[in-house]
């Protein structure tokens, strides 16, 4: 499902070249729920960005659902991402000017994969699935952190992508809410979606199928 071969990523900083990933080889199967853990600066978010096509590797290749994404153009990548990857951020990143349901409908609007007349119903279904259908007409600022993250997960599922990527989705939430969010990811895994979660949560291991630990840009043996 997801294959990384010899992925290297370096950043040019005023202090010099910083190697964020040093030759990552990794395979994640369809329907697998994987947690990526490691210290700050170990390369967790960079690894996630490689899988999402947010960033391109300096060397090596990334293949998701059989697509070698490093070969795609900027626009192709955006269109591919909209249909194949749902992303959940630490700070929710809902658009403040749109209501919760509009935020969920937005990816459908961009990708056009879901017919226009079905979008609202699908968005409501997704919000129901994450238990915030009652808040559909509210603005993100009217929701708690946990509710916002649920809305962000619903948005990530808008176009029914096979892969869901989450970058420290519970980093801004209390432990009870974090547990609920991880439970949601587990359910997604049960539904056959491939879920990769970058996290600091120590007890994530009890929910996920596999834990990948990164140390200084390399996968720990």
């Amino acid at each position: 499902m997801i294959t990384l071969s010899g992925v290297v990523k370096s950043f040019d900083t005023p202090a010099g070249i910083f190697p964020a990933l040093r030759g990552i080889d990794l395979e994640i199967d369809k329907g697998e729920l994987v947690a990526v853990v490691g210290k700050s600066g170990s390369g967790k978010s960079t690894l996630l960005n490689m899988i999402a096509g947010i960033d391109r590797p300096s060397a090596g290749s990334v293949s998701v659902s059989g697509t070698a994404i490093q070969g795609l153009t900027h626009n192709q990548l955006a269109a591919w991402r909209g249909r194949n990857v749902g992303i959940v951020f630490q700070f929710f990143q809902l658009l403040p000017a749109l209501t919760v349901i509009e935020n969920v409908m937005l990816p459908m609007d961009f990708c056009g994969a879901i017919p226009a007349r079905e979008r609202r119903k699908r968005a409501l279904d997704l919000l129901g699935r994450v238990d915030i259908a009652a808040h559909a007409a509210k603005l993100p600022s009217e929701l708690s952190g946990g509710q916002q993250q649920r809305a962000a997960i619903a948005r990530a599922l808008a176009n029914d992508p096979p892969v869901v990527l989450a970058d420290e989705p519970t980093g801004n939430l209390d432990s009870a809410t974090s547990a609920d969010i991880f439970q949601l990811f587990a359910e997604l895994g049960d539904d056959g979606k491939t879920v990769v979660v970058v996290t600091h949560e120590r007890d994530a291991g009890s929910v996920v199928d596999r834990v990948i630990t990164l140390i200084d840009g390399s996968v720990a043996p």
Partner: protein
Amino acid sequence: MIAPRWRKVLRDIAEAPGRATLSVVAMAAGVFGIAMILTSYAIMTRELARSYAETRPASATLHVHDLNDELLASVRRFPGVLDAESRPVIFARMRVGEDEWVPLVLYVVPDFNDLRMDRFTRSSGAWPPGDGEILVEQSSLPVARAAAGDSVTMRTPGGIERSLRISGIVHAPGLAPGWMEHSVTGYAGLRSIARADAQAETSRLSVIVAGNQLDETHIREVVGRLKNSLESQGHKVAFVDVPPPGRHPHADQMDTFLFLLGAFGALTLVLSAVLVANMIHALLTEQIRQVGIMKAIGATTNQIAALYLGQVSILATAALCIGMPLGYAAGRGYARFAAGILNTTIVNAAEPLWAIAIQIAVGLGLPLFMSLGPVAAVSRITIREALNNDAGHRPFGSRAFDRWLARIAWVPRPLMLSLRTTLQRRGRLLLTIGTLAAGGAVFISALNVAAAWTRVIDQDYRSRPYDVDVRFAEPYQVARIANIVAGVPDIARAEYWPEVNADIVGASGAADIRGRLVGPEASTPLLRLRMLEGRWLASGDEDVVVINQNVQASVPWLHAGGPIGLRIGGKELTWRVAGIAKELGHGAGQMYAPPRSILRAAGQTGDATRTVRVVTRQHDIASQTATARAIERALQRDGIKASLIQSLADRRKSFEDHLVIIKSALVFAATLVVIVGCLGLTITLTINVIERTREIGILSAIGATPRTISRYVVFEGVLMGFLSWWLAIIGAIPSTYVMNDMAGRMFTKSSLGFLMSPLAIVIWLVLVVALASLSSFVPARRSSRMAAREALAYE
């Protein structure tokens, strides 16, 4: 149902009403400026042309002897002539005060109910005038110091006086405004008592040609045939005047005015463009994170670009809806004001479609065009850059200049923080400074052009350091005049020059320009004109002339060292052009020649004079006026026929009055720029501060007081104002050069010369620094009073 992405656009606008309003106001200010200038330009151009065409201006005027009704009828039947009218003109003077007279030009109209050409309309009073009455052109009333119903005294050059009643006021839009010319224009009937002095009257035959009335070659061909035909019938044609077809007597003045209006319109467009670029940049900067999110959930570059171009379109449409009607109202008001100055009337103040189309195209197109670059840059930004919020600017320290700045230790730390912050966001800095500099360049240019006009007038009047100009209707012995002048108090010096009417004869043999030759001594200190070509008169010169740039503009083949054909007293002579001088206030026709040559050509004795230049002891306006009146009394007592007695102050005022319309355009442009520029500056600096709210929060969190923060921000504003001032000076150089050159050539047929007004530069410095301080102060104070938590949470 509106798609969520378009709802986002609408809500982004609605959710930040302050910022949206600022953006709309900034764009509306630009639209207002362009709409105002375009409206006044479009209305003025159309209405001036219409107003002049409606007077049915004559194609040519022939000075024909023995003109009678039978001859007039035959001229009307002449092939190529559409219509003809005989309208003699009387050149006299009108008394406006005790020993105070102004030139009076009276047209004798054969039939007031059948004005065939050079038409005028009744404004008030009786029409037609009776035998002891005249009609006065409305723009002359301030000069005449009289109103309808008043009686005035007219004096012919022959000294004959008549009391005439002003029976009515008329409007003649085809004539130069009397208040500018400092003369009174009026109309009298065929049997008017004003026709008392045959010597004062010139017989004129005006014709309108059939066919293309705007083709000067065609007009000259028809008029040439007519002249030959008249002369073959024994009627002497003294002079043929073919004015530039379709051009009002003050067309040069109007061209200059309209050129300046157009030039400042273009500069306002540049200012508006920079302002819009600044606004768009500010709008997009705060959207970068959202662009990253949208891209992360599948938005393509094109979709992002469409979203922001859509947002710009909405704001631009709102700006257009505000700026266009306001600009139209202001432009229409200005057109009416300018029309009043030019003695014309705006009948139709509707804006032509082309002007509306340009305003819409500019109002919508310019913001979209200026957005293309920033929108493309933002749309192409990577998700990582967008979410990290480090797009578009490298961190401080990544450039050699930053590191150099960082090593400077002697600058106080707060000041250094302001400096580094200002220089960190270079794109933003450049746009802000660019906005200020564009406004400053326009402002300085406007004041430079005004200052150049003043300098040209000063130079011209310094080149003729006398106080009173006296002209006689006929030549007098110098000794007689000198004796009279000697009896007038307060006169320090007087020079007695010969003068004679001399027409410049063109290649066709017809007289092209009615001129006069004045004969100062070569060494006179009372005339030191600046030479544009060739040289001034020299002692020992014979049969040479010095012409001015107006003469050369009318007869382009004349050049220094070349021949010039003159007709003096019916004799045709060929003299040589010694040089071309620059002088103001004289239309085409003023020439200077050695006194001996003039006297010989005119058949006069060696001590005849027709003009006196008088220098007063006090050399001020009061003594000029008093001396002019005293000379008037003295000449009258001795029966000397004076045709003109004019103080230099009056002449200068007359020329300056011609510039009122041009200076009004400059003041108009400068005011517009101050309004648009200041508004833009305030908005730009306000947005600058808004963008830095988070940074201000950090400063507040680490202990900076609101006063300290305000000081930093105001210092940055002043620093940007100061930097822009230099750029404004540099930007004003080419625009001043072009405008001074073009405006001068259009109106005075000679460049005004380059001039950077120190006053303009200083005024702009004071304005820009004051505005930068004020514009920064309010938002800085607001931000500095915001709690650190609020400021840090600010999105």
